[in-house]
């Protein structure tokens, strides 16, 4: 009696997946839970969602949420291509992509860049733990320089910054968060789901088995101790009115493509303007130099059109076109033929 249901009459359980087989305490599990919570709270109809991933522990996780949504666990580093194909032929689908730092930063770098360049509408989550979990603890491209790991030894290469890479490729939504900060993760996910094109969410998601010691910037202890949120984020659905209960100067309101809003309560006066690309790039570079663990919304641009839009493609999903729209008529063929005929 009295099981909570959301606006479309579904229980939270309807958003769950199969039991996780990831390690107890893995950051990825907490992210899966936020996805369940967010889709439930937003009353998203599971059948409209597609869950896409590459290969890795992170990429396994789509099996553990939204059991009522179609899922595609693709190839290592190649999920962006799947997302591009699927959303291009059915833009009414809500694509949630889950990748890892190895899946995106190493083998997947090229596809990641070009998906962003096309502004493919997908919530692209990088569950960033600085290691290859599923293959047992090698360094990924986001591992800290100078870091030591039991199995992999010493890493002497500089880490790539997923957010900076996204920005360089003209990403229209870039945010960083921490699996240990579920509230922020949820609000950012909600906003990302309202975003027009590719929304890149770089979530530090500790690997408790291979990379969770204090020294690692991808560990729980480090995150808990060092996280510096840029803003206090509240997502306001389309329906609800925005109430600015503090003086405008302290809050920045960003209107999302679907009409919903993000309320960004600035946490320090000289704070970051996420609608300014230059500021975003500078912010990341400063954070790198100072090695600060900043989280929050780094950049957003709701004006950048998606690939479908720039391609002047019909809004109706191509998969919904009836067969007779797909196959031109006999007359059409006759017309083409007659143009080619020997003596027309």
């Amino acid at each position, binding site marked *: 009696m009295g099981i909570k249901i959301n606006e479309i009459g579904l229980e939270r359980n309807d958003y769950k997946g199969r039991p996780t087989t990831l390690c107890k305490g893995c950051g990825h599990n907490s992210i899966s839970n936020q996805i369940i919570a967010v889709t439930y709270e937003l009353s998203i109809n599971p059948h409209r969602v597609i869950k896409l991933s590459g290969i890795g522990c992170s990429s396994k996780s789509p099996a553990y949420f939204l059991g009522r949504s179609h*899922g595609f*666990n693709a190839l290592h580093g190649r999920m962006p291509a799947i997302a591009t194909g699927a959303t291009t032929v059915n833009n009414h689908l809500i694509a949630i992509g889950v990748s890892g730092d190895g899946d995106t930063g190493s083998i997947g770098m090229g*596809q990641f860049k070009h998906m962003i360049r096309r502004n493919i509408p997908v919530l692209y989550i990088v569950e960033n733990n600085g290691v290859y979990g599923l293959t047992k603890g090698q360094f990924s491209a986001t591992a800290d320089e100078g870091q030591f790991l039991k199995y992999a030894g010493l890493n002497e290469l500089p880490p790539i910054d997923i957010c900076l890479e996204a920005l360089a490729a003209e990403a229209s939504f870039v945010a960083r968060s921490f699996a240990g900060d579920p509230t922020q993760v949820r609000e950012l996910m909600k906003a990302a789901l309202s975003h027009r094109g590719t929304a890149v969410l770089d979530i530090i998601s500790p690997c408790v088995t291979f990379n969770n010691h204090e020294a690692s910037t991808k560990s729980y202890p480090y995150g808990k101790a060092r996280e510096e949120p840029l803003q206090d984020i509240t997502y306001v659905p389309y329906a609800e009115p925005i109430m600015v209960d503090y003086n405008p100067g302290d809050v920045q309101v960003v209107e999302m493509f679907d009409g919903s809003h993000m309320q960004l309560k600035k946490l320090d006066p000289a704070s970051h303007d996420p609608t300014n690309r230059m500021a975003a790039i500078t912010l990341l570079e400063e954070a790198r130099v100072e090695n600060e663990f900043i989280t929050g919304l780094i950049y957003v641009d709701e004006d950048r059109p998606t690939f479908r839009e720039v391609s002047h493609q019909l809004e109706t999903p191509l*998969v919904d076109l009836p067969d007779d729209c797909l196959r031109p008529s006999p007359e059409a063929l006759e017309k083409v033929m007659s143009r080619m005929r*020997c003596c027309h």
Partner: protein
Amino acid sequence: MSDEVKSADLAHLIGEREPIVNDFQIIIATVNGTGSQTANTVLLRALFRMGIPVNGKNIFPSNIQGLPTWFTIRASKDGYMARRETNEVLVAFNQATYAQDIAELPEGGVCFYPEDWGMTPSREDISFYPMPVEELVGTIEVPANLKDYIANMVYVGCLAAILDIDRDEIEASLDFHFSGKAKPIQLNMSVVNAAYEWALDNLPKTDPYRVERMGQNDDLILLDGNSAGALGAVFGGVSMIAWYPITPSTSLIDAAREYLNDLRRDPDSGLATYAIIQAEDEIGAIGMVIGAGWAGARSMTSTSGPGLSLMTEFAGLAYFAEIPAVIWDIQRVGPSTGLPTRTSQGDLMMAYFLGHGDSKHVCLLPATVGECFECGWRAFDLAERLQTPVFVLSDLDLGMNLWMSDVFDYPDQPMDRGKVLSAEDLERLGRFARYEDADGDGIGPRTLPGTDHPLAAYFTRGTGHNEYAIYSERPEDWLANMARLGRKFDTARTLVPKPVVDEVKKAKIGLIAYGTTHHPVVEARDRLKQYDITPSYLRLRALPLEETTRDFITRHERVYVIENNNDGQMANLLHMEYPELASRVISLAHLDGMPLTARWITEAVLEQEGEH
């Protein structure tokens, strides 16, 4: 001046020798990037319009500008479409190669050349026709930047005069080429006319070659296989194309873009009801195709060897996760980058087994532009019915050269979208098992993302799974799934196009060929008759193989498998498929970048038969 009169005027000029009519090959040697394509195709089309069976082949370098390129036009009253080794008529328009080009002419051959070079005829046994190119071009008003380009029309005019090509058809061909734009037509035609007149007045005919109008070609078209394949795909209802540029496949996509732009726009908004994505590479391209196929759209890509290599991992995923996709491979010469602008049938084995582990794929093997069109749409029916990637193995010769064909027939059956369960179906059935073989054909039902039913969802994966698409490492599940895939492959045998068999009564030997190798085989069989060798002939049109082929081999003592690759790949596949018959299956394979010729095949068969 009407054709009759004109040819009459010419008649007396012809030397003693018997006239050779509609049965010779022209080779035009030029430098690439100088725009000789227009001249060459116009010549080809003019002969075509005269009702003469013709075939043109462009032998071009992997380069943009400045290297030697050749264009051959074969006129064959007997209707042979294959390349011939000897060219009787040469247009020597490339100073870098003319010595060699002339040396290769047969006795009694013909050579047209720009007299501007001041070269002196090097052989007594051939007819030389000098052409005052600069002078003739000089007489016409041409923008400077078009001079070189237009100069090519000089040889068109001269050939027309000496070989008796109907100028009206040349004009009509120019009209076709420039889709009716008056200015370029008039400009080019004026050069053609000037050269024509000049040749009539100044070049006494000393060679026996000429053309004559043959029956009408009304229901024939002249087209390249890539355009035909693209058109076929459009009439197959393709909605998404992802690709990455590569020779000789690019022109298939270019053609598709044009046809889709014409035929697939939303009447109201004028917006595209299709998508074409130039991917960042071939891994991306096939990934997008698979993503779209999974989501329920007919999607395809086109590539060549190097691209196919990059698609290996995704091909295995699509095979094992059972996702429809159509992949065209316009074969060029490999291994590796090989000869990017030369033709081959060298990717057969690779395409059939593409992917690690145990995978096998459906492959279609078009031999004509008509079959390219048919494969264009049929590949989608097969891919969606079988829920698997379908490879269409064309080649550079078929894809990029112009071939005569009957006009294409509209698909004779509605689109087969395969086993897709709707929300209603699920409601009725009350259950859904993605990989369950309810019908015994090895094909399970699928649902599309976005299907509004609690039962609709399943999890697609390249990992081991049970009937419900749930991850499983259980040996029984693995075995059952692979066994079902085996049944599905057997179903494929029954659905792919059957071989075309031309059985000769009591024939002891048979020939097997596929793709473009078909054309020289047809000619070779006629030649072999002279040696009282009359083999039966089976032309394969697809993989996997089925009983027709086994029976054909069984009925013959020796079967020669003729193909344009180095290792005899189809012969290898036949050995594998029919070990009990393998000893009668003999490979005749040859690959040097050129299409096979009837001569090579004839000699190869004779040599073999000599041994018996």
